[in-house]
């Protein structure tokens, strides 16, 4: 087991290093100079040079790469070119929007998908199944930004129940802040819920066909007990795997949803930072996201290996 963990940790570190290098190189190659973006059309050459020197952009690329990586490892994410504040502060501010948003979206999608997937499996082939799967089909097909605009038109413009977007911040209380995340979370959750419901349905249907279910029924257990205690529990593995994968999709989805609802989250930040060539912010966030995703994968790997000893030896391709 220990050997397995060490092996996986080495892979993890190597992946991060490669990601950091790629992101640095891409931002180097990308045409565009942060100083030019900041100073605009009328900037004079000496002003540009002064700003570049101030931002440390006049040093050679390898030197900048090494100092960035060393600072990153020591926890210093640097100062944003455009905002002129520490990047860690920016990320912290944005995380308090994006993290609750992603968690709410996962919560909603689970709460919608698992029951409807199970129901659908229970009533396989009957009208309830057809209706639920029809809606799920629609959910997969509808792009979330368009669904988001429909939500705004209905709840904010026509009914006037919510604001059309924006984020009041947690300073004025938790409820208004979470309230502002409600529509965006629903918009993010629905397509995910649709996928999850379909996976849940087929997984439950598979399990319902297993011999031990027939045995349980033959023992005379009531239908509900068979379904919930024996079938659903064993069928959860597949939807749980999908949920793990969906987390990274959610992070990507926030870029779009945060723009539609003008939420000041991480997705908006990286979107703006790329346009403004705030290189340091882009590099930090990308590496951070890569780190989050591979750490989640790492934990999942470890859990699988724990549960299934066969994986510990051949381990690389989980």
């Amino acid at each position, binding site marked *: 087991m220990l050997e397995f963990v060490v092996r996986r940790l080495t892979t993890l570190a190597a992946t991060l290093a490669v990601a950091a290098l790629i992101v640095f190189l891409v931002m180097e190659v990308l045409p565009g100079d942060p100083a030019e973006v900041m100073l605009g*059309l*009328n900037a004079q050459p000496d002003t540009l040079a002064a700003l570049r020197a101030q931002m440390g952009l006049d040093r050679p690329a390898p030197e900048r790469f090494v100092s960035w990586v060393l600072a990153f490892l020591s926890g210093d994410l640097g100062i944003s070119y455009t*905002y002129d504040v520490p990047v860690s502060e920016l990320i912290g501010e944005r995380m308090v929007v994006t993290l609750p948003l992603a968690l709410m979206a996962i919560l909603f999608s689970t709460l919608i998908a698992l029951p409807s997937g199970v129901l659908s499996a229970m009533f396989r082939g009957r009208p309830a199944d057809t209706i639920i799967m029809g809606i799920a089909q629609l959910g997969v097909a509808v792009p979330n930004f368009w669904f988001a605009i429909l939500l*705004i038109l209905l709840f*904010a*413009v026509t009914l006037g*129940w919510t604001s059309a977007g924006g984020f*009041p911040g947690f300073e004025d209380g938790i409820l208004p802040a979470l*309230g502002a995340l409600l529509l965006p979370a629903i918009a993010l959750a629905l397509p995910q819920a649709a996928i999850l419901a379909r996976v849940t349905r087929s997984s439950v249907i598979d399990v319902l066909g297993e011999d031990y279910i027939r045995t349980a029924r033959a023992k005379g257990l009531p239908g509900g007990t068979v379904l919930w205690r024996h079938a659903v529990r064993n069928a959860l593995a597949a939807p749980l795997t999908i949920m793990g994968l969906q987390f990274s999709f959610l992070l990507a989805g926030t870029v779009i949803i945060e723009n539609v609802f003008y939420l000041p989250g991480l997705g908006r930040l990286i979107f703006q930072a790329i346009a403004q060539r705030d290189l340091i912010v882009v590099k930090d966030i990308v590496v951070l996201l890569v780190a989050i995703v591979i750490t989640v994968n790492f934990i999942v790997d470890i859990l699988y290996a724990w549960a299934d000893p066969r994986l510990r030896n051949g381990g690389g391709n989980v």
Partner: protein
Amino acid sequence: MKTKLFAAAFLAAGLGMSGQVAAKDTLTLGIGLEPPHLDPTGGAAAAIDEVVYQNVFEGLTRIGPDGAVLPGLAKSWTVSDDGLTYSFKLRDGVRFHDGTAFDSADVLFSIGRAMAEDSTNAQKGLFEPIAKIEAPDAATVTITLKRPTGHFLFNLGWGDVVMVAPESADTNKTKPVGTGPFTFDRWSKGAEIRLKRNDAYWGAAAKLSKVSFKVMPDAASSAAALMSGDIDVFPNFGAPELLEQFRADPRFEVVVGTTEGETILSMNNTSKALSDIRVRRAIAHAIDRQAIIDGAMFGSGTPIGSHFAPHHPAYVDLTGMYPHDMAKAKALLAEAGYASGLKLRLTLPPPSYARRGGEVIAAQLAAVGIEAEIIPVEWAQWLKQVFKTTDYDLTIVSHTEPFDIGIYARDSYYFNYKSERFNQIYADLTEAVDPAKRKALIGEAQKVLAEDSVNGFLFELAQNGVWKKGIKGLWANRPIQANDVTAAYWE
């Protein structure tokens, strides 16, 4: 069943947070781009000025809603007969928001800082004519110029020339401290910037107690925010196609004003084909301005025939110099040796006027035998490729700085235009102080640019404001980048 319950819960939660309608003395404005920071002396982004200019920071002079130069922190001034020495009398009792007093030492500091070697002022060129600046006493500042500069007082009214204090200059980016009628309150990054009334203001106090600027990058969400009452005013609404909807809505008025944005089809005057004036003139004849305004801007915008704003008193209408005439365009192309066709790159930055206008222009050029290959780029890339290294043939961009005809006199500006005749006129103009002479020279400058067909002159960008009914005292026009709310009030 469960899903139904959750739906009910969403609806219930929604009821608790209905959109806030502003009370009588507060105002919420929508802006399309978030300022990167809030120091107008340290960046070119128009979004900075759109929040803080006049509201938080003030200069020696200020620009009025009609573009006139008005007294600002200088209550009066005299100019010597040779036009070289300006003597400013400063207002008494002015204090910065942190309580420090404003006097001539702050003027020396602010201008000195902008002119310094390590200055990062985006408009450092505005200060270039200054030879020396002195403060004979605390309430007087004397500026001596290297040469007479006709629009010097106007230049002092730019956002980049506002007065800052040595105590707070370094932190203005995140905590702006000025002398204006509003103080900075809070900035929720990515969402909203709040200002509140400065009760210790030296002049007439603002009527609004709180002003909030909400960042709305997306046109559809901006429209929704206006209709749901989240914002009261969108001073410069980005989606002209949605204006009809607001015109029809009795809760709003659509206020179409002028801007300083000359929208042009810039041409690289040194690229192979475009260095030939016949080709440039052929393009001018091929362009149908009204079709571009209708097709790309849904009818808002005023045609221009040179690089000058139509609402300016010295404007000369040159839109008739190259009438839309496809036969003429084809003949000129044939004469230049491109009878069998010509291929040009059309590099388009992100704004919708450029992307949409580019489609229309490409079609118009195709009709006379010029194949324009559309290359969409983002801003940073545009700055590098088009503006800096001039690796382009055609591009579309709006030049939004006020009175910027002088860019044609610059060496190696991205049009790569060089004309001794124009340079002479512009040099005479900079030194001319007599209004009649200035007007004549400005007219001549416009004519030279049109005759040389330097660029395709398209239209003056309109400012399409969507205002909730009842708000008064806002600027309809945009003589300078600003959303001056100092005189705004609700009726």
